[in-house]
Every structure is written in C-alpha cells, then in structure tokens.
C-alpha cells in the first residue's frame, strides 16, 4: 500500500504539472465536442486526433488521448439522451431510458445523472485499477477461448432473460445480430461470407452505421409518422438538475454499474461492451418498478452509464499490466505508446513509473475536469431541444450521415445505415427491442472465433467447455438461466 501511495504521489506530481494538466483539459473538451456530434464516438474521436499526439511527450500524449476518450464517452451519452443517437455501442442502452426522460422533460436530470454516474464510476474504477491491476490481470489471463465463449453465451442469455418483453423475441433479435455479424471475411479461413461482390463488406458490418440506423434513424422515421412532431419539453432552469429523489434513485444503480463494469472490463477481448447491457438488465430485474424501464427509469441511465465508464477504466488493466488491448480503443492507445517506443506490460510500472502513475493520476484529474466541464454545460446541451423539430431532424440526419461516413469514408456504410433504419423502424412498430441486435453484431465474430479456437485446441472435442472450471461454471449459470426463462414462457403460452 505504501508503494502504491508513493507511486500515486509521483503520479499526481506529474498529472498536476501545468503542461500535463492543460492537455488533460484540452483532451476532455475536444473529446466532448467530438462525442456530442451524432454518430461520432470515442473510437472515431481518438482515431481522428491520434496524429496530434505524436509530437508530444509520451506521458502528455497518453493523458491527452485518455481525456479525449472520456470526453467522447460523455459526449456520446449526450446525443443518446437528447436525440436517441448512440455514438458507439456502449451508449446504446443509455438511449432507451435517457431519451424517454428527455421526452418527459427530464433531459437535464438525465444528463446530470449520466455525468455524476460517469464521475463516480470513473473514480472508483481508477482506485480498482490502481490497487488490483496486477492480481486481476493474472486472473484475466486464465480466460482462454473456452472461457471467453462461455462468458459471451452467458452475456447474451443475461440480456434476454432480463429484457422486459418476450424472451423469445429478445433471443430472436440477438440471433439476428449474431447472423449479421457473420457478414464479411471469416478470420480463420479467409472465406468471404455473404459479401455479394461488395468488397467494403470484408471487415463486416460496422457497429456505428448499424447502431445509428437502428436507433437514431428509426426514431426519426417513427416521429415522421406521428401526427404531431415530438416536442420534448426543455426543462425550466430550476428543474435543470436532478432532484433529490432522482439522485437517491440513481445511487445504488451507479454503484452496482461500477462494480459490474469494472469486473467485465478487465476481461481481455471486447467483453467490456457487455457491461452496459448487463447493467441495464440487472437494474431492470432488481427494480421495484420494472415497468418503468423503457419509459424513463433513472436506474436505466445511471446503471449503464456507470458500467460503461467503469468498464472503460477496467479495460486499461490488461492494456497496462499485460500489454493486451481489450478492444479497439485501448488498441489505438497502445499503438500511440508504441509510437513513442514504450511497450506496456508487466515491466511498465518499474521501467516507466512516471508514465504509469501519471496516467493513473490523470484519470482522477480527467474525471474531475469532465464533471466540472459538463455539469455547467447541461443547460447548453438541453437548449438544443428548443430548436423546432422540423429544423432539428434534417440537421440530425446530416450529422448521422456525416458521422457514419467519417468512420471509414465509405458510402457502403450509408447504405447499411439506411437499411438498418428501415429494419429498426419496422421492428419497433412490431414491438421488438433492437438493442440485442447491436450486442449480437458485436459479439458474433468473438463468439465464433472463441468456439472454433476452443475446438481446435481440443482436437474437436466439445468437452473442453465443461472440462475447464471457469467455462463450466459460466455455462452452468447460462443453462440455469435459460431453464428459468423457459418455464414462465411455457406457462404464458399455456
């Protein structure tokens, strides 16, 4: 502990030096500005601004990128809450109840809860990162393909089990997402599946065009059908903040979301995406008023937002402690460090203590900067709702097209967005939830690769999924969950 405190003191001396602090603030501001643009999320933000960091000192570069990351995460939540447009997969769950709160005139409260939840989760998760990084990283290393496959199956079933509507519908949606995820080049054999000559589909369907289509565009289409355009009430100034009751309601989901997010986030791979989905499902199950979910439940914003931010911190554990990126964003940051000749891994703390502890301390500072920056901005963000809808939706549509195009400069992504907009519109009219499609799309390549790698490891024996204790436990829980789901569904049918 003494060593940790000593390291942290060193970190704060680095993070609070005027030069580094200035870059943390700039990163948070730029990240928020990029994240607020509909369709542009943290990945796009970091990728676009990565070259800027090349001319900086390594510590300053990583602090700047981390600031952009947090800023963009929060900015993405803003568009999710105000316009139902997720900037990236992690904001998908925030769309559901955040936007409903906006429609009920509680946009300011939703934004404030998201900011506070993100701050609490970020700060608590950094403590976890600081104290638990080495032992947790060791545990996470025990996750091989079989454990990973079992975890992903469990994640999908948790989502289906705890979704508010029909379990069969949720599973059908998740399977549809998994099927969409098979489009593109098979990473294990190089076969191009369901490409139909469109070379741009080689990398598969992008998450951003699919999410923007299913959520943002379908919302515009549903609103276009309505006799009166949607007019979310901009709250009066004194109601801009969350009230006592809402803050009380958000407290427990924030803490639960933080724990779920951090634990899910440390698993190497892209499992951290599951965090906000699992948190939403858990909150709905634990809620005394589950019927409020999807209609503006405070816990539906606080839980996923906290989980999302804690997972973002958790995701840095394998990156810093093992040099294993746990998703595309840590991978880009890893690349930035490597450009500076630094190889993250077990030796980082000893060889580059200033960088490691400076980065940790900058996370505290970044969270504080974001809170100080975003709470006063809630009023400005909410004032967007005062724009008449007939002007707002063409502007949102332009930003959606822009955000989707900017990810890979491909018009194929615009076709995907349009197709998914149509699909989301029809499915929502038929009373299907579209969030499981996004989760399925993200997890499909991971799940397929994990299953096939597991079989390759075991020379084709499926027993590998039950021989290994962690995988067996996870699959056991998944099976139990499935059986518990089937019983009420059968009762309802009879």
């Amino acid at each position, binding site marked *: 502990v003494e060593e940790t405190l000593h390291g942290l003191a060193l970190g704060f001396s680095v993070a609070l030096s005027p030069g580094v602090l200035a870059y943390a603030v700039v990163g948070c501001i730029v990240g928020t500005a*990029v994240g607020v643009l509909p369709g542009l999320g943290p990945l796009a933000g970091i990728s*676009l*601004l990565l070259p800027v960091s090349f001319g900086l000192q390594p510590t300053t570069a990583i602090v700047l990128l981390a600031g952009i990351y947090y800023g963009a995460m929060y900015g993405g939540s803003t568009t999710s809450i105000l316009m139902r447009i997720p900037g990236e997969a992690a904001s998908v769950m925030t769309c559901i109840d955040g936007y409903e709160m906006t429609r009920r005139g509680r946009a300011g409260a939703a934004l404030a809860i998201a900011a506070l939840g993100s701050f609490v989760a970020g700060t608590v998760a950094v403590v976890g990162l600081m104290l638990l990084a080495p032992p947790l990283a060791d545990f996470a290393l025990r996750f091989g393909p079989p454990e990973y496959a079992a975890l992903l199956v469990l994640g999908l079933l948790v989502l289906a089990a705890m979704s508010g509507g*029909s379990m*069969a*519908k949720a*599973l*059908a949606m998740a*399977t*549809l997402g*998994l*099927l969409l995820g*098979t489009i593109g080049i*098979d990473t*294990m*054999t190089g*076969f191009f*599946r*369901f490409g139909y000559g469109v070379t741009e589909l080689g990398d598969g369907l992008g998450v951003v065009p699919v999410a923007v289509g299913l959520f943002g*565009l379908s919302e*515009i*289409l*549903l609103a*276009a*059908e*309505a*006799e009166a355009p949607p007019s979310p009430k901009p709250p009066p100034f004194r109601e801009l903040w969350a009230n006592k009751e809402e803050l009380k309601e958000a407290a427990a989901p924030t803490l639960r979301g933080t724990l779920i997010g951090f634990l899910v986030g440390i698993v190497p791979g892209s499992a951290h995406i599951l965090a906000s989905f699992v948190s939403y499902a858990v909150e709905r199950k634990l809620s005394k008023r589950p019927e409020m979910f999807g209609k503006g439940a405070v816990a539906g914003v606080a839980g996923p937002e906290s989980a999302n931010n804690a997972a973002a911190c958790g995701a840095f554990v394998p990156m810093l402690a093992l040099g294993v990126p746990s998703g595309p964003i840590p991978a880009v940051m890893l690349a930035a460090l490597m450009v500076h000749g630094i190889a993250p891994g077990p030796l980082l703390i000893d060889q580059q203590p200033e960088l490691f502890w400076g980065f940790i301390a900058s996370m505290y500072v970044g969270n504080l900067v974001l809170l100080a920056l975003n709470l006063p901005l809630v009023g400005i963000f909410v004032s967007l709702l005062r724009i008449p809808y*007939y*002007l707002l*939706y*063409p*502007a949102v*549509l*332009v*930003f959606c*097209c*822009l955000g989707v*195009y*900017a990810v890979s*400069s491909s*018009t194929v992504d*615009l*076709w995907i*967005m*349009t197709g998914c*907009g*149509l699909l989301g519109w029809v*499915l929502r*009219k*038929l*009373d*299907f939830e579209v969030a499981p499609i996004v989760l399925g799309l993200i997890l499909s390549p991971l799940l397929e690769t994990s*299953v096939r790698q597991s*079989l390759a490891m075991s*020379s*084709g*024996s*499926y027993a590998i999924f039950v021989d290994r204790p962690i995988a067996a436990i996870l699959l056991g829980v998944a099976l139990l969950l499935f059986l518990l789901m089937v019983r009420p*569904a059968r009762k309802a*049918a009879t």
Partner: protein
Amino acid sequence: MKRDQAAGGAFIVLAGFVIFESRKLPFGSLSDPGPGYWPVVLAVALAAFGLAVILLGTASPRLAASEWSGSRKAIAILGACAFVALALDRLGYRLTMVAVVVFLLGVVERKHPLLVATAAVALSFGTHYLIDHLLNVPLPRGPWEL
C-alpha cells in the same frame, strides 16, 4: 394474421435464405467447423426462435391493426438517406447535403424558401468546415469541388 406471427414467419424465411446461401461455403464438420458452420447454426437458432415467437404470439395485436398510413414521410426520409449514399461520391458532400436539406425542409416540410436556403447552406457548409477543415477528415468534393 397476428403481428408476432408475421414477424416469426419472416425470421423463418430469413433463416431459410441464410441456409440456402450457406451451401456455397464449406461446412466442415462438428469437430472442425468451416466458414459455413456458424451461419447455419445461427440460422437454425433463428428459425427456432421465430417458431417460438409464432407460438407465443397468438395474443399479439393483428398485423392489419398496425398504423402505416403516415408512412409516406418516413419513406421520403429513407429516400433522402439513399440519395446521400448514392450521390455523396458523385456530387460531393456540400452539394449533396444542400439537396437533401432543400428536399426535407422545402418539399417534405413545405417551409419558407428563405429558411430552406439558409438552413441548407449553413448545415452543409458548416459541417463541411467542421469535419473537413478542423478535424481533417476529407469529405468528397465531386466534380465542381463542392
């Protein structure tokens, strides 16, 4: 026909299509799956869930009861998105967005021409400046450098 029965039926048809299309891909074996294995497994699962949706959805509202009468505006918006996908590389970003905003505000919403022109120019040129100049993401310029 009930709403869920139509949806479940559509899932089964889609599953059949995926299985049909997967015949071109090597299936491998259960112990050594090929690239065709995973789509077929998922298609079978989708068909099973589609069947479950049909069986459990007998009490869902009738499909004919769904309101589609206001869909013309929604289809116009979808058409605008398709136009962007088609025209962006050919006409350039600014010209395409001017056309889209003029269509949505002027034709679909029937707003005053001055408002339409101002919004179209401000949105297309403003966003172009932001993304192309400030964030250095090159946007298509088209034959007239627009």
